[in-house]
């Protein structure tokens, strides 16, 4: 697992994006409409979000209600058609509810990191000089850790818990987002029309708002969506290690962990939570790829 280092994005069609301004979003929509793979997996992402949000309506059972006599029932049992877990709780209900925490812990760190890392990167890129050096060299230190190691080190030191896991993953994703934001901002800053705006007396705030943000946000946003897939796998991985969500909360990674003892008794059941993580992460990844090519962004 790792975040692929954003290779220096030498070729971003910022100029093109700007030129197309009016027809741009129409073009993007049209491209998306033709992209069946992205539409299909976009539908799955939506479905996963919906079943998580409405888990309390859809779930056939209470996800916390254990039963001594109904432990580890196989998939296809009447009344529990995805079986029951090691304490007799309904698997289907737990998988539905599990999406809430898994999605929350996967998406929130990326959003926080997008806000913090994006801001740091834009400041570094726009101001340049010493500010840039301080910010980017600090990021380099975080970059010196493989992402899994950094996430586990921080949440291992802080201890288990949802908040700690979200915090550690946020720290993992800030540096790559800051790097992308910095390099895109630096490029935009040096474009002729930004120079022209500066020469004609526009304030720094206005230049950032009007010229830089409109060009930089798309690129950072797309890069952030590509991190969600990694984040979901890492977040569930932390819970799998016992560092994220604590029992008895339903969460896919934690369920995968507690069901490990069942692999000899009921292997299919033990593998189910991982299927959910896989489908969700794969869908987010493909949607991100689709959006990227539809928006014609190369980072």
């Amino acid at each position, binding site marked *: 697992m*790792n975040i692929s280092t954003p290779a220096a994005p030498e070729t971003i069609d910022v100029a093109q994006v700007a030129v197309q301004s009016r027809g741009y979003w129409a073009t993007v929509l049209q491209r998306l409409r033709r992209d069946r793979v992205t539409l299909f997996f976009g539908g799955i992402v939506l479905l996963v979000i919906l079943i998580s949000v409405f888990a309390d309506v859809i779930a056939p059972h209470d996800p916390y209600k254990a039963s001594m006599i109904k432990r580890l029932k196989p998939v296809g049992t009447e009344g529990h058609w995805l079986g029951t877990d090691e304490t007799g709780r309904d698997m289907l209900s737990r998988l539905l509810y599990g999406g809430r925490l898994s999605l929350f812990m996967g998406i929130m760190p990326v959003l926080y990191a997008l806000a913090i890392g994006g801001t740091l990167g834009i400041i570094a890129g726009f101001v340049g000089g010493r500010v840039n050096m301080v910010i980017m060299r600090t990021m380099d230190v975080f970059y010196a850790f493989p992402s899994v190691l950094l996430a586990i*080190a921080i949440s291992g030191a802080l201890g288990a818990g949802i908040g700690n896991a979200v915090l550690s993953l946020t720290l993992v994703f800030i540096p790559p987002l800051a790097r992308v934001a910095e390099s895109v901002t630096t490029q935009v800053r040096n474009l002729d029309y930004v120079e022209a705006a500066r020469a004609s007396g526009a304030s720094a705030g206005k230049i950032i708002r009007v010229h830089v943000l409109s060009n930089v946000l798309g690129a950072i946003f797309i890069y952030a969506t590509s991190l969600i897939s990694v984040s979901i796998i890492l977040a569930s991985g932390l819970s799998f290690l016992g560092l994220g969500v604590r029992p008895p909360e339903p969460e896919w990674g934690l369920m995968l962990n507690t069901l490990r003892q069942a692999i000899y008794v009921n292997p299919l059941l033990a593998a189910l939570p*991982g299927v959910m993580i896989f489908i969700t992460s794969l869908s987010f990844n493909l949607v991100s790829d689709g959006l990227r090519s539809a928006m014609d962004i190369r980072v």
Partner: protein
Amino acid sequence: MLGYILRRLFYVIPIALGVSILVFALVHIAPGDPLNAVVGADAPAQVVEKLKKDYGFDQPLPVQYVRWLGRALVGDLGLSVVNNQPVTSALAVAVPNTLMLAIVATTIGFVIGSLLGGLAGYYQGTWIDKVATGFGVTGVSIPHYWLGIVLVIIFAVELNVLPATGIGPGGSDGWQFDWAHLRHIILPAITLSVIPCGIITRTVRATVAEILSQEFVQALRAKGLLNGRIMLHIVRNAAPTVLAVMGLQLGYLLGGSILVETVFNWPGTGYLLNDAIFRRDIPTLQGTILVLAMFFVVLNLLVDIMQTLVDPRMRRS
């Protein structure tokens, strides 16, 4: 060239210092007293005071840091608070095991990834491309700890042809080159290889496609060169990028094998780290993370230098 290498070497120093500060700081963001793992909460005050002195926890933080760093530089990472053994001796057992697993996994990833990525890039737009690209996306989207469990279910539980856990027969804790040990590395290595597999497939595909679109390939074709000979040119041009990605992947796997090591009870650094976290063994936690991060820093440096040697255009600022 030499100047660049020296500058690059020099640049590693602040990074390494930053890393050491971060690793040291980990202890102090940790809630609770690091001594809790050694003595119970009801231990007499003098005992706690004496232990504090012995471990150096009574000094101000900067002093503790400088002392810790000074000792770490000469290879002393302190004593484990769990078993009072030097952290370095635990690492001496664990690091080779993790290194072995990471190298085998990277090699598998490199071979399969280059093959699939090369095919995909060469036959762009065909079904071969689609299958290989799909494989690449799957490799980076799959929760590998789950893949490990699935492989255990298939090959150890159902088919019963490969061992489910451990590094060797009978609770062996070190690697040996024999079939009995080799059987144990197959599943964890395959599990760990899916990530580099996916990433190398994607990289090779993009690189090959880019090279194919360059004019010199057309010139070679026009010259009447056979496909095999053209391939040779492509490989030569793609090699620096692919080797760099592979080097970085090895570093990621060294630090990222903790989940796989947990699934397979592989006695490496990840296993050590996991154990240290749950026993709140801070010196072991710090030492392991420091060593793994330094491996990564050095590997990054080597990749940079090698890339520059192969292709001076790659020089990173």
